[in-house]
């Protein structure tokens, strides 16, 4: 294996991670499942490309504004965020499964629109996107994304989202504006997905609606659940493992996706809450895990002592 190959996998994992972190907030902390976040990635990828692709010189080639990469990232994220606001207005009042199906519809609708509108190349795709994504840019965006999310979930806003996840009606009764916090979670997750889409497009140098199908959305949600709901470090681990796993399984040739599926099932059975369900790999998180383990052991000892003394008397 040469370095560029490993680098490529790391880039893909890093890009996936951004979208996964957004979904981690929406699904893991707020309790809303989405099967349409590839749609937000697509919006980010296309708007980002529109910003950075140089203006068209030849007839037939699709031109953009030729702006620096940072504008592409900002515009792609913002566009996805704005669209998510509209989507949220009409779908966030739906309960659980219905919201999930509405997001599925949104994701597929976005893909089909891009497939059929010829402005950006339709189903043939859009070649010639500049290769601006580097290991460094992806890494920097990852770090910013993790730090922002870690602070958000620890803030009052984050706790409100967790309250919505735990017991929506009870949160409402306490006076939490449930709709508002669902909306914030949706917008943040969409912006993350949009930014991931921009980085993805500028890594592949070619974008096509097919890349943002339901399979992609499902992959993101699987990573979040695999990593463990409500855990940022779980999402990081999940993105790394599940992006690298299909590559490690290349030895199995055509059987590799079968092994991929089997591996996911085995891990979910052995760790039903995901790799890191509700736990964090941070100094405070590790302290908490240790304290809980101590409490469990103490409880066990006490029970054993009671059983022993009960046996004597």
């Amino acid at each position, binding site marked *: 294996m040469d370095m560029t190959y490993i680098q490529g996998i790391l880039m893909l994992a890093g890009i996936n991670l951004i979208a996964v972190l957004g979904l981690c907030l929406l699904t893991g902390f707020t309790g809303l499942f989405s099967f349409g976040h590839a749609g937000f990635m697509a919006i980010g990828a296309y708007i980002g490309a529109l910003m950075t692709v140089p203006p068209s010189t030849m007839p037939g080639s699709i031109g953009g504004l030729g702006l620096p990469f940072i504008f592409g990232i900002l515009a792609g994220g913002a566009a996805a965020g704005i669209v998510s606001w509209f989507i949220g207005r009409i779908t966030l009042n739906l309960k659980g499964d219905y919201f999930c199906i509405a997001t599925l519809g949104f994701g597929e609708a976005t893909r089909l629109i891009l497939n059929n509108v010829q402005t950006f190349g339709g189903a043939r795709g859009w070649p010639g996107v500049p290769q601006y994504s580097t290991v460094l840019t992806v890494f920097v965006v990852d770090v910013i994304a993790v730090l922002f999310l870690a602070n958000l979930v620890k803030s009052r806003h984050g706790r409100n989202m967790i*309250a919505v996840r*735990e*017991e929506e*009606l*009870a949160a*409402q*009764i*306490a*006076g*939490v*504006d*449930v*709709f*508002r916090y669902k909306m914030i979670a949706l917008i943040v997750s969409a912006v993350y997905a949009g930014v991931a889409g921009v980085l993805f497009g500028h890594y592949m140098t070619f974008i096509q609606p097919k890349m943002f199908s339901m399979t992609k959305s499902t992959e993101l949600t699987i990573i979040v659940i695999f990593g463990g709901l409500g855990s940022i470090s779980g999402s990081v681990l999940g993105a790394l493992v599940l992006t690298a796993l299909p590559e490690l399984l290349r030895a199995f040739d055509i059987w590799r996706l079968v092994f991929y599926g089997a591996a996911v099932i085995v891990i979910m059975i052995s760790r039903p809450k995901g790799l890191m369900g509700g736990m964090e790999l941070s100094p405070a998180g590790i302290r908490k895990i240790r304290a809980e383990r101590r409490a469990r052991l103490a409880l066990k000892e006490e029970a054993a002592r009671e059983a022993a003394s009960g046996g004597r008397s």
Partner: protein
Amino acid sequence: MLSVRDLYVSYGGIRALKGVSLEVNKGEIVTIIGANGAGKSTLLNTISGFLKPQKGEVLFNGLRLGRQPAKIVKAGICHVPEGRLVFANLTVHDNLVLGAYLRRDRKAIAEDLDKVYGLFPRLKERMRQPAGTLSGGEQQMLAMGRALMTNGDLVLMDEPSLGLAPLLVQTVFDIIEEIRGLGKTILLVEQNAFKALHVADRAYVLEQGRIVKEGRACDIANDPAVRDAYLGTKSKGGGGVA
């Protein structure tokens, strides 16, 4: 204090409330009795803003209530939901503090917390325990305590005695009277019509989305039709349903 005017609420095509009007005055305990599916919970959920009415309005202290549940809580209406709905993973204490989510005055919050613990000594004993480990009755007390922590003047209670042991049912009704003693106004929805009419000042009988009777609780309790339908004190032949 609360006046509901000509309220219509539907679930899809099904009308659950068909022009309900009622008044709750300050300091009163008002009860709404009625069979399953009469629209009792729908009425409370509409007052709290969880459901949107097709027609009609809810006035609180003469002001039209906004549609957002959070604003309604802030205005001073607190809700003890059916089935309790406590945060199972949080401790009893944290659940209570959460009730004061919208309040800023730490001193007043601490005083109210003492009051709630005074009202529910059981909760004080178990304050460090996760709420999910409480018994049904204790969770009901916790839900009531949490509602009181919002410091709302009007308490909406949805079936507080649901699923509780008979002995605890009496405790819950005693507590309702004590809560009134704290200066709160209570709108109580109950299936246990006998107990509810005993504790209430006034009562409304809700049938298939309409108010069919209203009056002083003792009059309603003595009304022959009500006795027959809800209190089971006299049965005119036919199959009695327990």
